């Protein structure tokens, strides 16, 4: 199963990066979201999957899944939420002010 999950993570990264390389601002935001999903999945897969009970201490259970990756991912989910929402608003402002969402037209002209 870990192999399949690794491939899935690869696919998420691939589509995420492809979206990042596009010129539409919305696509770029979607790309970052996909990349962070992929990253979470990768961290989870690097440990062992389905190896023991959920990491909540219970009487009589000796074997738990690794809690550390979960803690890391939890932090990351929240952070990427912050990033995504900030990017969204930024994209919104940028396209409002410049009347375009095309990255190629959104370059500074100071050093041209």
């Amino acid at each position: 199963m870990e192999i399949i999950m690794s491939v899935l993570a690869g696919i998420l990264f691939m589509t995420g990066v492809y979206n990042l390389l596009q010129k539409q601002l919305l696509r770029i935001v979607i790309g970052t979201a996909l990349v962070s999903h992929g990253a979470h999945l990768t961290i989870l897969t690097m440990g062992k999957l389905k190896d023991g009970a959920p990491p909540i201490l219970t009487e009589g259970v000796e074997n738990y899944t690794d809690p550390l990756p979960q803690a890391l991912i939890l932090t990351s989910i929240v952070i990427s939420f912050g990033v995504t929402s900030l990017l969204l608003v930024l994209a919104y402002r940028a396209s409002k002010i410049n009347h375009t969402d095309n990255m190629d037209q959104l370059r500074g002209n100071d050093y041209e």
Partner: protein
Amino acid sequence: MILAVLLPFIIAIFIPFLSKWKDKFHTGIVVTLVPLVIFTYFARFLGTDFEPVTRSYRWIPSLDMNMVFHLDGLSLLFVMLISGIGTLVAFYSIYYLHKSEKLGHFYVYFLIFMGSMLGVVLSDNIYVLYSFWEFTSLSSFLLIGYWNHKHGSRYGALKSMLITVFGGLSLLGALVFMHTITGTTSIQEMIANNEAILNHEFFPLILSLLLLGAFTKSAQFPFHIWLPDAMEAPTPVSAYLHSATMVKAGIFLVARFSPMMSASDWYFIIVSSFGIVTLCWGSYMAVRQTDLKGILAFSTISQLGMIMAMIGFGTKVAIFAAVFHILNHATFKGSLFMIAGIVDHETGTRDIRKLGGLMNYLPMTATLAMFGVFSMAGFPLPFLNGFYSKEMFFNASLDLSATEGIAAFLTSAIPYLAVFGSIFTFVYSMYFFFGTFRGKANIDQLPKKPHEAPVGMLISPAVLVLLVVAIGLFPFIINEPFISHAASAVYGGEAMKEIYFWHGFNLPFIMSLTVIAFGTILALTIPRWKTVYNFVPGVLSMNKVYDFTVDKSVVFSSKVNKSYMTGSLALYMKLILITIVGVSFTLFFMTGGFALELSNLAPVTTIEIIVALTMAIAAFGTIFTNNRIAAILILGVVGYGLAMLFIIYRAPDLALTQLIVETVTVALFLLVFYHLPNLTDRGETGRGKLINWLVSIGFGLLITTVAISSHSSKWFDVISSYFVDNSYKLGGGDNIVNVILVDMRGLDTLFEIAVLGLAAMAIYSLIKIKNKKEE
């Protein structure tokens, strides 16, 4: 002693504040005191019974880098020059630089230079020496470019910087070599252990790197080209840095390492030949110049060459003469530079073709100039110090002995070259003096009506000229307590002690007379033979090589830059990703990092496959849909799929969080999308799409490979058992993930909240700006 070295730096910090009141009193007054204090401090070391002093201060002991200051005769000579001439130059600059100039800048650079130059000559630690060495290059760059509105200043500053820093880097190379070979960073210990370096297989390389550093700094042929352009600096700077002190740093370096290297034949051959060629070329080219400071610049080059050659000779007489001439040159050349500055200041031009007959208008200046010029020419008068060292130079050039190879050829050629160089030295000295102060006066053509300089401006050159005469009349006064110590330090043993004016009617004296005879003839007939410069050097010059190299590298680098700094963020992103993918895969391949372990896998179940397939399809879907709402919803599918995977993989907290976050995210997307244009194609070409795909696929492959390999190879034990064991004991909670987040890694979580808060504030203000604008 460390205070003496650091004093200029410390004062430099306060100069910007002081210069605010420059209208009331000139900043230079304070600055003049600094070298004066240093001069007084070091003056007490003078005396016949001088012994080297070493002081060390801890700096970075773990790297064997400490501020070790070793004051021997050679250092003392330079310290006296730096502080003594420094005092006079700073005093002179009070009158030279008007209060409307950027005095703060000038004096900060000036003091930085002074401090670093002191550091260069006192440091015993090679790396400390190197640091100070580069500081002198840097401050010289700043001082040459002081009048930065002039193109010439910027050009000259850049040129000097490029050439001296190039030399500085090669010096660093030599120092690192010597450190590795001897295992010490102390110059004195290296000298004691010089066999190891001399016999090392890399010795030729070390020698050439070291000498490259010295030759570029001391403007030896063919690296001399930066010095004439450095004359764009204010004249006090030219007098100080580019004649008396900084350009002698290269000579200092060679002299410092002379006890270590002089046993090598190549040392003699390289140093002497470069020196003697520089002497001849510099003096020959000086006559061609039309700018007063240009003449002095080439004259400095030639005199530096002469000193360099004498150090290369390495005999007792030669070393003594070299050290003696370092002092003499500083006195007469320093005064001549200041005189050139006065002429410039009072007439508004330094072009010798316009000048002439100034004797009647600047009588004091002319008198001072006369002493300086005749001392420089080596005129045999008992009150001119230049004659002594010139005579000793001839003496030393005849005193060489070598029996075979290049060295033998060199020893027989040197006396003739010495006479040749000296003849032209005589010619340009006369050219300088008579061209400026005698002849027909064209007062009407001068930008200003000339009149005698203010007394204050004359004091500094007058002091130097007094020294010229004093050393000439009573050479033994400075010899015993001063020069002989310096010579001993360079020679590595007891040095010659006597200086006489009259050596008898011997060969060196005949050489001197020859120089005067031919020199006078040539000086009187300059216009007749000046056409010779059209043939040698003609159109060939090192300047062209330099300009060509610099121009071409500027063009080349701007081409390279323009090829990828296009302003397109997508391109930058692609380049970064390609690099990451390329480097990572190369490393994977080289280190054999790839691993595939199939035995320890979790079982595959249908439901997981279905979820994974859905997510994969949805992920591709975001690319191929052009509908905004569809893209957002499909993204939501991926997020919810991930939440389901979290459930399957026994991570309830993650699943909960992911569900909430995903819902809010999708809601946010739906709020914003309306304001963004549709996702229609933005005119991407087929080739562009292909490259994007290749980059994405490469990166995806990299992630898959890394994930599989990291899962398959277990290098370390799992550390999670600690959390499982202590969650309840230390954190008092059953939910291990929660305990880790809020307790064991509580600070992380705190900062995470801070990040969210910042994001919230940013979002809020971004929306707020809009509202204001619309009102």
